């Protein structure tokens, strides 16, 4: 019987442009790695210049451009090597029903509202650890200083007795 579980990792990002190497231990009875889910929450930092890119008509229900907060790469010490590489995007349209924002509303401190989906991936017979590299860009152009927690949830399938 298989069971799905998520391994939660919190990475502290303290400076803009910080680059982090990380290792995620994998349980020995893991059958497959099946996805990555993530979220981030800003802890410190004052916005210095946010320029809304909305093209709205009435100024209240607009569509803003989302922002790439960072780039992540995950790999394993097997022939498969890099199995996931993606840009993490902050949704700036999560106000008032998850689909819109307002011309006069600044982005929130969190990157997701209630909608979150895992990025699917497939690593069969993974080794005892996964390595990762994260390059931050959340505060670029908008903050003088910023710190946040990046939460990674690595979804796995485990064999159960």
């Amino acid at each position, binding site marked *: 019987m298989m069971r799905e579980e998520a391994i939660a990792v919190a990475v502290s990002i303290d400076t803009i442009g910080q680059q982090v190497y990380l290792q995620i231990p994998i349980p020995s009875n*893991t059958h497959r790695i099946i996805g990555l889910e993530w979220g981030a929450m800003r802890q410190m930092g004052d916005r210095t210049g946010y320029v809304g890119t909305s093209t709205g008509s009435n100024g209240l229900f607009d569509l803003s451009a989302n922002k790439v907060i960072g780039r992540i790469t995950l790999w394993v*010490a097997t022939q498969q090597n890099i199995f996931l590489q993606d840009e993490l995007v902050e949704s700036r349209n999560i106000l008032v029903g998850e689909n819109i924002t307002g011309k006069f509303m600044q982005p929130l401190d969190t990157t997701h509202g209630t909608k979150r989906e895992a990025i699917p991936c497939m690593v069969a017979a993974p*080794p005892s650890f996964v390595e990762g590299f994260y390059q931050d860009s959340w505060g670029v152009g908008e903050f003088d200083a910023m710190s946040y927690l990046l939460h990674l949830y690595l979804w796995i399938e485990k064999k159960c007795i």
Partner: protein
Amino acid sequence: MYMTAALAIAYMDRRMLEWGIEEYHLRFRHLRLQPSEQRIVLAYGHLFLLVDPPADIRVASDVGVYDPGDAGAAELQYEHQGMIHIANNATTANQLLFIQVIPKLNSDAR
């Protein structure tokens, strides 16, 4: 004589045999520490071998302490496991080199 990279590589094979481990992964970890920075590195189930350590560095873990400035440490350890506390006691940036040994478990060999 400090622990050099060559000594560490020769040492780790024997150390892993003591653990009953025949195969393992190796990673070279080069940490850059800001002045007075403190950092925690998790190394549960792994082995971190300190290589050519600089002065004004403190490395403390579940199995030993490396701190030349600590008069209470009669013997310094180059091998570390568990939760490793690292402190740069210098007023300038410092660099710390480790060789990380990650045992291959049965799952790695599948």
